[in-house]
């Protein structure tokens, strides 16, 4: 692994632990100084700039680059943005509480309590789950009457609502279920596992923020499924690994690992969970002893180092949600022709939501979709289609190595 990546995860690990058990040595500090511009760029790509910046300052790594006005402004802007999101969340959660809405706050803001400096964790939106259909309509009406407007209609599992205030726009995703239908056999199991989501009341002491969220096991599973959802599409970056690290570290003592293991096995996600956890242990300072002490079941005795490296590379080159990697255009869980066709068909439906209702148009719409795909590769992404296909093939191999293609096998069985 190259120095830049080592330094990047070292800094993140430092930022995630208030006791700074993961010390940074003088040699590492020197390496960090040498790689500073690249590290800051990486932090931007993974949307973890404030963690990295704070760790640099706490380790007394001083550099003229950190004092530059533009950089200082960028960091200051991020700090204000994060406080702004927190205040927005506080206002909306108070509104929901006032109207006795039964909801669950998901990911982002609900994870802040696990971080030593919660305001360093950026969140671009706020996610609220209201699974009961009647309650969902009531909540939606309440938010619309409060001043929200609909940004995008209902997708498979959520609706985007926007709120404007003082020249700022805030995004709220109102979910009616946790995970979108991916069309594989896992969907039904997920549905069953989240059939009952009884909100648990929590309080974020640092901001006196009261909210309702999923219970610990469901929350842990949801974080894993959220990672999986992004991993099998365009990928995800270091921020989601940080979430996994701090959540496990703070909640290990209250997790029923045996029950969780059963869920993992039902979903065929044991290898995926083992690899992600091992990465957090090795690179983000997740203490193995805490997991062992609490009888964590997904600590693999041995994991192929080459596989770990491939997954880390996949995460590392993805940036936040795969935005940094333009070769990740095709998403295919299974390495076969039909899955690629199915994906093209799905894309056609996205491009032509109305026309696609009439199947007679499909051959023409498929052709246009293919033409647009080829043109966009050349003009916008500036990557040839061959590279994209090769990258897709490699990622499919990776999914296979993590047994994420087992849906197909299970279906056949």
């Amino acid at each position, binding site marked *: 692994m190259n120095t830049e990546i080592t330094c990047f995860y070292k800094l993140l690990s430092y930022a995630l632990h208030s006791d700074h058990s993961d010390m940074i040595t003088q040699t590492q500090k020197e390496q960090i100084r040498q790689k500073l511009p690249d590290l800051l760029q990486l932090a931007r790509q993974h949307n973890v700039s404030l963690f990295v910046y704070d760790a640099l300052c706490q380790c007394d790594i001083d550099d003229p680059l950190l004092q530059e006005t533009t950089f200082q402004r960028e960091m200051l802007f991020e700090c204000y943005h994060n406080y702004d999101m927190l205040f927005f969340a506080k206002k909306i959660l108070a509104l929901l509480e006032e109207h006795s809405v039964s909801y669950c706050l998901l990911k982002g803001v609900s994870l802040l309590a696990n971080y030593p400096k919660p305001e360093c964790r950026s969140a671009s939106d706020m996610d609220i789950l209201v699974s009961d259909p009647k309650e969902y309509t009531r909540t939606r009406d309440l938010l619309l009457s409060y001043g929200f407007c609909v940004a995008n209609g209902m997708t498979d599992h959520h609706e985007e609502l926007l709120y404007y205030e003082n020249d700022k726009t805030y995004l709220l995703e109102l979910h009616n279920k946790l995970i979108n239908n991916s069309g594989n056999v896992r969907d039904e199991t997920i549905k069953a596992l989240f059939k009952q989501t009884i909100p648990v009341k929590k309080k974020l002491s*640092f901001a006196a923020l009261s909210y309702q969220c999923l219970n610990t096991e469901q929350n842990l599973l949801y974080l894993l499924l959220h990672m999986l959802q992004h991993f099998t599409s365009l990928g995800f970056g270091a921020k989601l690994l940080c979430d996994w690290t701090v959540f496990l570290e703070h909640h290990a003592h209250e997790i029923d690992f045996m029950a969780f293991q059963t869920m993992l096995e039902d979903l065929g996600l044991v290898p995926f969970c083992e690899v992600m956890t091992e990465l957090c242990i090795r690179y983000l300072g997740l203490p193995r002893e805490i997991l062992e002490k609490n009888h964590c079941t997904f600590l693999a005795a041995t994991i192929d180092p080459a596989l770990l490296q491939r997954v880390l590379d996949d995460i590392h080159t993805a940036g936040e949600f795969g935005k940094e990697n333009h070769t990740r255009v095709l998403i295919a869980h299974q390495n076969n022709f039909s899955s690629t066709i199915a994906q093209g068909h799905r894309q056609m439906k996205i491009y032509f939501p109305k026309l696609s209702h009439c199947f007679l148009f499909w051959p023409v719409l498929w052709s246009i979709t293919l033409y647009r795909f080829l043109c966009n590769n050349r003009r916008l992404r500036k990557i040839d289609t061959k590279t994209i296909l090769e990258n897709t093939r490699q990622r499919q191999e990776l999914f296979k190595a993590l047994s994420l293609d087992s849906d197909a096998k299970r279906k056949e069985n």
Partner: protein
Amino acid sequence: MRLHTDYQLRNIGTFYFLVPLKSDHPVIDQILTLNETGAFLWNSLQKVLQKQHTVQPKKATADNAPLPDNDELMQLLCHALQAEYDVTKDEVLPDVKTFLNSLTQKGILTLKD
């Protein structure tokens, strides 16, 4: 003289912020950005407040606790800065005044008329 208790001093990198985190309806304009000296003065102010609680336990409450009068407060903060940074009173006085002015303008501190 009153000190707002909704505010917390937060530190990210080289920035210090006074953030109304405990407020029920916080707004971004209420945040005050401080430098290292400002952060030191805020901590000194908190210490003065704690001392007041110890000396006058019956008079002081957690919310809106009474503070020493304006001049006394200014003196105490100047002394604290002098002791920490080895500077003269004339050098620190403008900083202390600016700090107290910023707090009063944001409504974090209410000085006696």
